[in-house]
């Protein structure tokens, strides 16, 4: 009982996650192609044997009626086999990769936001409020401008370099500004991102690549081509989990970190590289998912505290659940068509972000009123 009282948030999230995974795999235009199709291997092998057996039956001694019956049986077996085969193909080559992309990009962006917030010691930092995402778009565009039709991996590389540089500039400027009101930081960050976006738009206009840029900026989990790039997120995620205690300590300040023998500058740089890698690869693979990196870390740390070691798994689960929910909504509202997931995430995430922002402003006022 005590266990349930303490862990109910975790249990609820896990249950919701499982339900959403189920839904995500089940819904779609092609009915009957749900999770069951993953377990039809034995049936398909049996059908294959049956087809071979039917093929091998000698037809010499058969009269017309018997021959017709055999052909009929062969056709039915073949149809059944083809149906199972295509359902399985949809599952393996569309729905499962889509699910992985949702989970990985969401978990990745949540971790990226968490690291940015620890590094800058500011709860309002995230890839979408520090110019990171916009710089990734600019990087991708520059890749197209200079090198033409690049493979996705090279586009990702360009996006990574731009994202890293833009984030480093922003974090170092912010740390020098010493703003008293933390709520201004995401607003400045959004302006900064807007500036980068404007540059991208201008370049897109000049080079007649505006349609490509617009396509970049509309996220979708149906963009099958570059999906594989999302698996790159596994590497920074793994590193984040490995060094999670170091990142927690960084979050307590430079002197605190140095006292514990942590090489502050190096860990901060590692963190920024992780952030840029995650932002760039998710951007190239699925497009922007605004606010995920901001609201999910805030939710996770308000539930489980700022010791990242204790919250990082919950954080990834939260992120995945949230984006999966948004993805399912995008697939259902215009059924059988799909809406861009960026739209759904922006609307839902934007509302939550506003709530956090207003709460942040109010608590700032409270503190000043006390002083």
């Amino acid at each position, binding site marked *: 009982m005590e266990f349930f009282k303490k862990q109910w948030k975790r249990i609820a999230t896990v249950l919701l996650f499982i339900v959403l995974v189920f839904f995500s795999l089940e819904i779609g235009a092609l009915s009957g192609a749900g999770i069951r199709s993953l377990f039809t291997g034995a049936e398909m092998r049996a059908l294959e044997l049956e087809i071979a057996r039917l093929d091998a039956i000698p037809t010499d001694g058969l009269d017309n009626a018997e021959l017709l019956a055999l052909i009929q049986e062969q056709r039915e077996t073949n149809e059944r086999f083809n149906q199972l085969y295509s359902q399985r193909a949809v599952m393996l080559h569309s729905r499962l990769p889509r699910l992985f992309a949702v989970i990985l990009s969401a978990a990745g962006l949540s971790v990226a936001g968490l690291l940015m917030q620890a590094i800058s010691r500011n709860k309002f930092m995230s890839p979408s409020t520090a110019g990171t995402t916009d710089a990734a778009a600019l990087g991708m565009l520059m890749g197209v401008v200079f090198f033409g039709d690049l493979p996705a991996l090279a586009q990702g590389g360009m996006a990574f370099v731009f994202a890293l540089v833009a984030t480093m500039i922003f974090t170092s400027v912010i740390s020098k500004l010493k703003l008293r009101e933390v709520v201004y930081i995401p607003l400045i960050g959004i302006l900064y991102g807007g500036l980068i976006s404007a540059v991208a738009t201008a370049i897109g206009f000049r080079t007649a690549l505006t349609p490509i840029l617009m396509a970049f900026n509309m996220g979708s989990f149906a963009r099958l081509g570059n999906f594989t790039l999302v698996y790159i997120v596994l590497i920074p995620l793994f590193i984040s989990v490995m060094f*999670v205690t170091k990142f927690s*300590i960084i979050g307590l300040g430079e002197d605190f970190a*140095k006292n514990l*023998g*942590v090489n502050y500058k190096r860990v901060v740089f590692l963190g920024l590289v992780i952030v840029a890698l995650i932002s760039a690869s998710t951007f190239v693979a699925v497009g922007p998912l605004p606010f995920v990196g901001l609201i999910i870390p805030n939710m996770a740390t308000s539930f489980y505290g700022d010791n990242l070691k204790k919250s990082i798994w919950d954080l990834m689960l939260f992120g995945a659940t949230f984006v999966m929910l948004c993805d399912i909504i995008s697939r259902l509202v215009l059924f059988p068509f799909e809406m861009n997931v960026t739209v759904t995430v922006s609307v839902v995430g934007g509302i939550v972000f506003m709530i956090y922002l207003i709460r942040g402003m109010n608590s700032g006022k409270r503190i000043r009123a006390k002083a």
Partner: protein
Amino acid sequence: MIEVKNITQSYGKNVDILKDINFTVRENCVTALVGANGAGKSTLLSVIANLIPARSGEVLIDGKAVAKIKTADVAKKVAFLKQSQHFDIRIPVKDVVEFGRFPHCGGRMKDADNKKVSDALEYMDLKYIAHKYIDEISGGQRQRAFIAMILAQDTPYIFLDEPLNNLDMKYSVEMMKIVKKLVTDLGKTIVVVLHDINFASAYADHIIAMKDGKIHKEGSPAEIVNSEILNPVFGHEFNIVERDGKRVCLYFN
């Protein structure tokens, strides 16, 4: 042993903050560092703990220059609690103390590490609030939690920069008693910055008085706590009385 040799330090192109500082930290003692605001006390401790590099001169820990020792190894020798810990961070007391083990275990706690953490919590009487977040306990408890972290860090040398900040008298006295106990029970060597000269007089074994980036005078409380020395150090008129064998400064006039 920690030896400080000819240390000078400045921030940017400003005037020298520390000017040719020389002293040896006394082992198994509470050394109080006193001086007016801006005298360079915090800077000196930061240099010794290798948080900022000295511009010239060197700090030797057991005969080895601190700048040449790996940061992670310095953290096993010297623990340094900075002046202001304005923590609005939600971390349980126990986890903060566990951070103290980081130099030893790199975040992967083993049985021995858990034992040290548990001992530190016990020693600082924090067991009953071990699971509370540090932003929801009192200032005195929070200061004790950080001391517990430093105990878990298990270093022979401990530097505390104004640990009595934000503590009321009861907690201040309690804190200084703990500092004393760490020296007598656990054989630690402690350097503590105190802004109230009376606490230095009552609890320190040795006092270093700093003025304008220089050591003005060092010695036992009996030698330092008199108005000829303290008046120039603080730029203030002291009236010193003796009561029960301890000297007390009256500084209201």
